[in-house]
């Protein structure tokens, strides 16, 4: 009987406690931000695409030590 009571308490606690762990981060592991920014291949393709169209952001006229 005591054993059953322990099991019951454990089962009830699990319902409330377990979702706080893994589920919270999984919430954004499925987002497009996370999927793309953790994929080197996708980022290589995108940064190559950006490099073709985006002008330089630093001047080549800079000279000397800053």
């Amino acid at each position, binding site marked *: 009987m005591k054993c059953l009571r322990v099991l019951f308490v454990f089962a009830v606690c699990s319902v409330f406690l377990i979702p706080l762990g893994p589920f919270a*981060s999984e919430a954004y592991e499925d987002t*497009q931000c996370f999927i793309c*920014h*953790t994929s080197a291949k996708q980022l290589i393709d995108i940064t190559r695409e950006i490099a073709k169209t985006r002008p*330089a952001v630093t001047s080549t*006229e*800079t000279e*000397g030590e800053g």
Partner: protein
Amino acid sequence: MEPLAPHEKILVDSAIVDDENHGLIACHECHGGNPDDPNWKTAHKGVVKDPTYPDATAACGDCHDEINEHYTKSLHVSLSPYKLMIGKRANPNGKIPHEVVEGMDNHCAQCHSSCGQCHISRPTSVEGGFLEGHLFQKKPPMQEVCTACHGSRVQKEYFGEHEGTKPSVHRQKYMKCEKCHTGEEMHGDGKEYANRYEVENGPKCLDCHEEIYDKDADTVVTHRIHKDKASCHVCHSQPYNNCSACHVGKDKQGLAYYKTKESWFDFKIGLNPLRSDKRPEQFVTLRHNPVDRGTFDFYMKDALNNFDALPTWKLATPHNIQRKTQQNESCNACHGNASIFLQEKDVEEAERDANKGVIVPDNLIPRKQKWQPK
């Protein structure tokens, strides 16, 4: 510093989900954008690259409220000494003409930091890029963050990169920047400081070396003789980097650039321009800084018309400390050795008025000593 490939700069380490604190915050909660949009171009609409600058409250304030409270007054964020110094050089009342403000915004103000640009990515001024795949770094890595910005002076000096100089003894003992420059100092204490030397919780040599004045210390005699007369750096720093003639402007594409003339390693002792109870020494090491009468000519001719209000040779605390240096080999390596003191002949004629308060007149150069301590 090893450059990062463009994709490496924005590649997130999936281990971030294991961060029990930051791993619970979704990307868009700090950066904005649309997390459900599979098209990267439209998904990034409204994205904030660094949500911690200029105001870190929304991104960091909830948990790091004590740090965030003083954040905007941290010198790394406010850059307030730049504004004060340029203000004094521009105008006796400190007012900076709007043309110069524009120049400062385009150039000087680009070298700031933020929570994110120390703990998450390399600073934007060195083209950014995540540190360890956006895993939050409690202690910013020295070479990717600190000396990435403080390169021409601190890095070259601390690592002994200039021919004929050694790394700092602190580097040789594997000390990182944060050993002396604590988080408390970096984060600010809520006070507005005119320069970094005023910062109350800044590093002091005596924090670690208080024993130098003990009666049993090996070097007690020399330390007691020079106490409050010469700064630690006067005896213990090696030659350090000096810069000159920084001019800023924009190229044909409208991109900001700067040009500095020569930079050179040298060692000059001068009169302390910031003498105070905290820094009572008469003699300090001086460094020529890159400001020039024409620094902002691109934006406004002769903008710094009160240029002589401040010296161009400024108090310096070079980061290349050694126990034994050329000038402390013996008493007379310094005493009577006029060449290591900033004299009128060392200063360009056009800058002599500005530096009259720091140039050492002949009668103040310490005379040769007959007596030598054991």
